[in-house]
């Protein structure tokens, strides 16, 4: 580890602690804690959404995958981005108009049953745990690689930082850390892309031409065309379904829509986010191609078999120690911004949904709620740090796509029916969440992620279910489960649906009529 890395690292940590200090002074109520007071502007929240969404896996992982697998490495970026159309067209505005702090709020706006809220919170917590575990384990390995710090120490450093941000600065600190991270990430990627393009005299055709000549024994086809990685088509389709429909069900992303004043600002934050995220994904092509052209394949694989070191190594080649250190610092910032958002959404599901609404039935004082939120945030952090330390040697990267899958199968069907289907009822909502959740989990346990005769999974047997990602089956299952549950359950009065419709379309609230 050299001096530049240490300085950049300390500057970032120092700056975010200053942010947290100022944020803590503005975090006086539960609303401040969960939603930063609901006063973020569209571009601020758009930046924060990007910061929340673009994980280290997208930054280092996709760049590396493109460097090793060409087109196949880039392929999924398409799903990660178009998912925001689902967010914008279907979910964002009704969510903002109906909810307060969590996704469960929105569903509970129609079904006041405590059970519905409890199940909605359960699926959010499942998603957060999977996502968090994958992020933390990845973070530990990454920091070990970048800074040469032992795995468990890395996890603890990340864990302590995320706990400080959330516990003291709540959503305000988390949002600003995410914004700073998004800006750093964009500066880093734009800079490296520029240096890469300079190598090709800004001629994209020359660049693609050079990529065409890349060959390697493990490539099952041309580097520039689909299929080099040899994935089965059904696997690709299934994962694409999970990404497309999952984003609109991810609790930590949806929670960001409560940090803005109204539906109008919610939609403009999606607009900002799609531009930032889209441009970022396009730039990863240049990062990946740059690494493929300027580094050798052996070099990339030797540093990390998944290609995670391609971007940092490329930065070193192009801009020496200074740029490499900057990229390492950006990767660190990236990890922190994502896990902080996850802690907060996990805490809101425990403290707001389960404790305040289900157990206490809404009869809690402001100070009790705040205390519960902080205890929940602290517990979520500690628990995930412990889990991550134990999971060090496990291959948990698939948990990210599983989190998307659960979000798409358990959350999205219920969200869609809540907004658009008149007949939908309590039993339907519960059945939808349970079916989506159970089918996803069971199929993953039967999949090659867990059952692998080569020993790469957890159990050394032939997988019973062939696909890595169950979304192809579990998303329709979630929709059908909710549909059947509705017809088996009792019809309910349409009074609540009327309210949901009026609120979600007009955004009317009591403050509109009380003055």
């Amino acid at each position, binding site marked *: 580890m050299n001096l530049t890395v240490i300085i950049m690292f300390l500057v970032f940590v120092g700056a975010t602690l200053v942010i947290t200090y100022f944020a803590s002074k503005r975090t006086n109520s539960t609303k401040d804690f969960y939603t930063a007071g609901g006063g973020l502007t569209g571009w601020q929240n758009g930046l924060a959404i990007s910061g929340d969404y673009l994980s280290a896996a997208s930054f280092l992982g996709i760049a590396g995958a493109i460097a090793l697998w060409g*087109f196949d490495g*880039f*392929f999924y*970026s*398409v*799903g990660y*981005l*178009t998912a*925001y*159309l*689902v967010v*914008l*067209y*279907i979910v964002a*505005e009704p969510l903002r108009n109906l909810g307060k702090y969590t996704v469960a709020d929105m569903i509970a706006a129609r079904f006041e049953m405590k059970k519905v809220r409890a199940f909605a919170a359960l699926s959010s917590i499942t998603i957060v745990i999977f996502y968090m575990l994958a992020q933390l384990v990845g973070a530990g390995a990454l920091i070990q690689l970048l800074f040469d710090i032992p795995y468990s120490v890395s996890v603890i450093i990340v864990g302590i930082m995320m706990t400080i941000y959330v516990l003291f600065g709540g959503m305000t600190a988390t949002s600003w850390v995410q914004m700073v991270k998004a800006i750093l990430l964009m500066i880093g990627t734009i800079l490296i892309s520029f240096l890469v393009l300079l190598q090709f005299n800004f001629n*994209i*055709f020359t660049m*693609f*031409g050079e*990529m*065409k000549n890349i060959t390697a024994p493990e490539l099952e086809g*041309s580097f*520039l*065309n*689909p*299929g080099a990685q040899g994935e*089965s*088509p*059904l696997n*690709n*389709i299934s994962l*694409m*379904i999970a990404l*497309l429909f999952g984003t609109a069900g991810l609790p930590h992303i949806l929670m960001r829509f409560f940090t803005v004043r109204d539906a*109008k600002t919610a*939609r*403009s934050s*999606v*607009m900002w986010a*799609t*531009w930032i995220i*889209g441009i970022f*994904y*396009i730039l990863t092509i240049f990062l990946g191609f740059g690494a493929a052209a300027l580094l050798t394949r052996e070099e990339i694989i030797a540093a990390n078999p998944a290609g995670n070191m391609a971007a940092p190594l490329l930065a070193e080649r192009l801009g020496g120690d200074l740029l490499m250190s900057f990229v390492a610092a950006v990767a660190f910032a990236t990890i922190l911004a994502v896990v902080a958002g996850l802690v907060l959404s996990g805490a809101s599901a425990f403290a707001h949904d389960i404790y305040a609404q289900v157990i206490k039935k809404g009869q809690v004082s402001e100070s009790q709620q705040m205390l519960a939120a902080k205890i929940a945030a602290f517990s979520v952090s500690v628990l995930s740090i412990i889990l991550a330390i134990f999971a060090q040697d496990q291959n948990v990267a698939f948990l990210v796509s599983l989190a998307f899958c659960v979000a798409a199968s358990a959350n999205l069907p219920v969200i869609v029916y809540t907004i*658009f289907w008149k007949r939908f009822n309590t039993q339907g909502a519960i059945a939808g969440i349970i079916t989506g959740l159970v089918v996803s989990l069971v199929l993953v346990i039967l999949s090659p992620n867990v059952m692998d005769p080569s020993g790469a999974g957890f159990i050394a047997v032939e997988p019973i279910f062939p696909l890595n990602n169950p979304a192809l089956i579990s998303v329709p299952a979630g929709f059908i489960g909710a549909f059947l549950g509705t017809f088996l359950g009792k019809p309910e009065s349409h*009074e609540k649906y*009327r*309210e949901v*419709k*009026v*609120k979600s*379309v*007009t*955004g*009317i*609230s*009591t403050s*509109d*009529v*009380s003055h």
Partner: protein
Amino acid sequence: MSEIDYRKIASQPEFESLLKKRNKFILPISIFFIIATLLFPVLTGYTDILNNEAFGNISWAWIYALLLFIMVWTLVTVYMKRAKAFDKEADEIIRKYREGEYK
């Protein structure tokens, strides 16, 4: 704080027409982008048509991906425009309700 009479608002023709217009706008576009996105892994997985070169060394697979990116930005812009028009109608409904014009 006064209770809002949702039944009254929901039964106004202005509200019904706004709701219908919104759904008519959202539904076809949503179906379109869902198909456009899911068609991509189907085409790359089961056919070779995207492997042919479109411009220079750039094959149709890259062009399709780029078009999906452009689709996202275009549809976001379209949504922003339409939503602004819907906002006006919604504000009008809220104003009328608040001023007691709905009986």
